């Protein structure tokens, strides 16, 4: 894999992205607050519980400090691949 690095330093990238990143984090925080405020009127469905779990997992990925967070998040939100799908579908 080739990596094309522009001339910018990590500090420069952080500084130019800071306000946008701050705004996106605030959107996440406000959305989580909104969900909490809405309260619970009925038991969560398994689909809803799964989505809550995915969001929680995604936040943990962001905090992990590991590289390739975007790809890891994409995998977290993806259905699992079954290598024997052709056999299962009889194709």
């Amino acid at each position, binding site marked *: 894999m080739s990596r094309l690095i522009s001339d910018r330093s990590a500090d420069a990238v952080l500084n130019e992205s800071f306000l946008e990143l701050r705004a996106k984090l605030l959107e996440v925080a406000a959305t989580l607050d909104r969900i909490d405020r809405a309260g619970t009127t009925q038991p969560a469905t398994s689909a809803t519980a799964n989505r809550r779990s995915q969001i929680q997992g995604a936040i943990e990925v962001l905090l992990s400090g590991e590289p390739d967070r975007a790809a890891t998040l994409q995998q977290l939100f993806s259905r699992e*691949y*079954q290598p024997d799908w052709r056999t299962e579908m009889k194709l």
Partner: protein
Amino acid sequence: MDYIDPHIHMVSRTTDDYATLARMGCVAMSEPAFWAGYDRGSVDGFRDYFRQLTEVEPRRAAQFGIQHFTWLCINAKEAENVSLSRDVIAMIPEFIDAPNVLGIGEIGLNKNTKNEATVFLEHIDLAMKFNQLILIHTPHLEDKYQGTRMILDMLTSDSRIDPSRVLVDHVEEHTIGEVLDRGFWAGMTLYPVTKCTPERAADMIERFGGQRLLANSAGDWGPSKPTAVPDLIFELRRRGHQESLIRKVVYDNPIAFFSQSKNFHFLPRR
């Protein structure tokens, strides 16, 4: 900078959009056949649509100096109707020699079902029979990873298929590596919410380089931005990347891939 949008659905866009695209530097585009927002009821519905793609849109584009190319298929969302799909596949050869047809597409999967896979394989047969390029649609959101892997399984298990003649579209961070590693071309779709932003596309270019990588807007009837490719150009410039790299992704690569079709007679601006 002159650029080519390799995946845009102009039947859904206004003539004003053609004018705007021309002013933004778009000199050519390719329009895959896709879902109309509703399931069509007959093969004649598709016959009319293919006339629009091969006769009407090239004329509309030409008014603004844009060269229009297209791809033919029945899309994955309508592939659940296997009987209709087979009728459409049987009808496609009526249009395959139209002067702006580059190949079969956008074919692929939507919900990764058996019917979709069946129709996908029959499209592949058609493409091989008529020696056509292939343009692939990969599914959205949680279905993308599984569907992309299934599509790659089907493509790589067919010895007739040359990966350099296949463009796999809508790649994202978790699918781009495998598509490129297996020798296919990869298209990044700059589409709000469900696909990729110009910033993330620029990240992928930085990570994977510009080889066999294209960028498109997939502008259609949904929330989409037909001028998204110029947004990517400006993002790459903002990061200080060389014009040669930007030009490779938005101009040279589409030309290189499309030039494998006998119908791609592109006239660069003088």
